[in-house]
């Protein structure tokens, strides 16, 4: 029992990170129908921004709650700016072209960020400074939870509530929903769609950066290619939950995270070795899509004849 609870905690920790990144994917897709492959790399950029902030502002030497908050918010702002820049200079010019063109632009952007970071920072993993003390709390039996895991849960939930508030209670959120419903009609209604799209990118990138900094607190190692697999799995989570659907992205992320750890923990008893961890996310996705093509919480859009 303790082992099961332990695995569940491990899984939900990872799942929360996936969920934070998946939110960015799902928002961008909801509005532009664009798979933003560079989004996983924004998560990496966020972690590096946090690293640079924490070391240059001296929080690495004198860790404090204040330092952590500054690092977290600072890296979210930097990532938001980079996300908007990517949208402005790479995606906006190709927005009106075919899906393939935008997809290749996104892949190109992803490669550009990765190789640029390898060139600038080198491939060597960098140790992320511990900004908050990390202690273990024994729950019961052998099941433990560390403060960095609690931090991930708390900050993720806060950010998700904040996002929900932005989308449903503010004017810009209303505009985002309108644009995602129909871009052209929204434009006719006088909504500045370019601004809304840029804002969406900023929001998504900030969430991914928060994911990057939180992961770096939990697993204090950052490297230029850390966003590829994590980003891909977050995208899978977004599709699983129903792409374009915000609660769906959270549900998808948590599900993928839990499924992964349970496969590692218990897969061997049913003949699935732990090496299939990365395959599990995709297998679940495929199964779900075959049964519910729009994802778990997605609404099925009826094609009009």
């Amino acid at each position, binding site marked *: 029992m303790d082992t099961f609870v332990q695995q569940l905690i491990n899984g939900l920790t990872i799942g929360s990170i996936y969920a934070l990144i998946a939110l960015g994917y799902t928002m961008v*897709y909801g509005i532009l129908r664009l*798979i933003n492959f560079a989004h996983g790399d924004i998560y990496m950029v966020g972690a590096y921004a946090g690293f640079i902030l924490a070391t240059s502002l001296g929080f690495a030497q004198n860790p404090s709650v204040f330092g952590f908050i500054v690092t977290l918010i600072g890296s979210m702002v930097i990532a938001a700016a980079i996300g908007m820049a990517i949208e402005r200079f790479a995606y906006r010019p190709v927005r009106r072209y075919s899906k393939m063109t935008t997809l*290749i*632009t996104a*892949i190109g952007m992803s490669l550009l960020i990765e190789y640029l970071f390898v060139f600038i920072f080198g491939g060597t993993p960098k140790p992320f400074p511990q900004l908050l003390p990390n202690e273990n709390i024994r729950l019961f039996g052998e099941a433990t939870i560390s403060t960095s895991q609690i931090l991930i849960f708390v900050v993720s939930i806060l950010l998700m509530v904040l996002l929900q508030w932005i989308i449903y209670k503010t004017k810009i959120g209303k505009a985002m929903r309108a644009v995602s419903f129909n871009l052209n009609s929204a434009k006719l209604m006088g909504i500045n769609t370019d601004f809304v799209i840029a804002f969406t990118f900023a929001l998504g990138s900030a969430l991914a950066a928060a994911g990057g900094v939180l992961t770096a607190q939990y697993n204090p190692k950052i490297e230029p290619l850390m966003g590829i697999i994590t980003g891909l799995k977050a995208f899978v989570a977004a599709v699983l939950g129903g*792409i374009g659907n915000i609660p769906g992205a959270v549900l998808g992320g948590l599900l993928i995270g839990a499924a992964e750890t349970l496969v590692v923990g218990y897969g061997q008893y049913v003949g699935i070795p732990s090496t299939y961890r990365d395959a599990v996310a995709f297998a679940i996705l495929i199964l779900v899509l*075959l049964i519910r093509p729009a994802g778990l919480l997605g609404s099925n859009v009826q094609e009009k004849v």
Partner: protein
Amino acid sequence: MSSWVKSLVIGIIVVAVLYVLNATMSSTGFFGVGIDDYQGRLLVFIAINIILATSLNLINGFTGQFSIGHAGFMAIGAYSSAYFSNVYGVGIVKSLASTGETVSTSVALICAVIVGAIVAALMGLIVGIPSLRLKGDYLAIVTLGFAEIIRIVILNIDAVGGATGYSVPGYANFLWIGIFAVITVIVIRNIVKSDAGRALVSIREDELAAEAMGVNTTRYKVTSFVIGSAFAGIAGALFAHYNKFLHTNDFQFIKSFEIIIMIVIGGMGSMTGAILGAIIVTLLPELLRKLPEIQVGASTFHFSDLRLVIFALILILTMILRPQGILGTREFGLSWLKRPRKTPEGGGAVGADTGVPIAQQEDAKRMQSEEDEDQ
């Protein structure tokens, strides 16, 4: 000249050209003239990439399906044919030893390629039937997922080397790879120009309308997917028997992306575009290795360290400046060399000269005009 004589003559010329090229790669060269192993290797990869690009073009460019997991089928073809060669191929070569090395290895290669193609086609069928119910991006992510699952499963099979890698007998040479590339191009061109090809293009343009016109869309979609997968399997088999070594790191999703880049950069839905794309994506990163270095103070700065950054930049700029790809929707050719010929009835296939589905083009035009109004 009757048509079969013409085909025969062209066939002989093609084989002769490939034979000469193959000879130049050998250690003695073609009458002393030759190209080195590195250049030969690039030529071989161009040929293999042409097979991959044209076959993916059949699925993506002509049928309008969105598959981004082509490397998975390549891996299936590569590993199944390699396993076949290691288990049975050696026996085939031995039993045919009396016929000489060229014949025996060629027979073994063709057997292995057929095995690779069949296994990849079967896998394409297994993947295709359920997933082709999905559309657009959903299909894309499912094909990507299947490719990753295939890779991870292969990585866990110790019989084919797992993380160590898998050695394969080197039966393939440029002659065979070139012949297979030419066959692939001809077969896919003929499919596209046939009735079935028109059905495929009709699915790309408007699936509902095609269905209403009596096209069995599911059957055609699955068929094109299976054919595309089979050719990817052939490419994989040739790669395995040329490279002589397989490792799953060569089939990561970046490989699938490269194949997609080939067809988009060359021009979707254009045969010659896919070929051009294959050549560019193979040669450009290699040419960028030759970038100069400059002296900054005491240290030297190698521009070639930035080659992949530059490659990514070129990719993005191409998409921004020429979103329809370099050739766009046209076929590159030397039509001025040909005698004017009577156009066959009905002209080319519907949309044969448009890479972007007509519906999307109109969408794009509309959005374009709207944006113009904004400004």
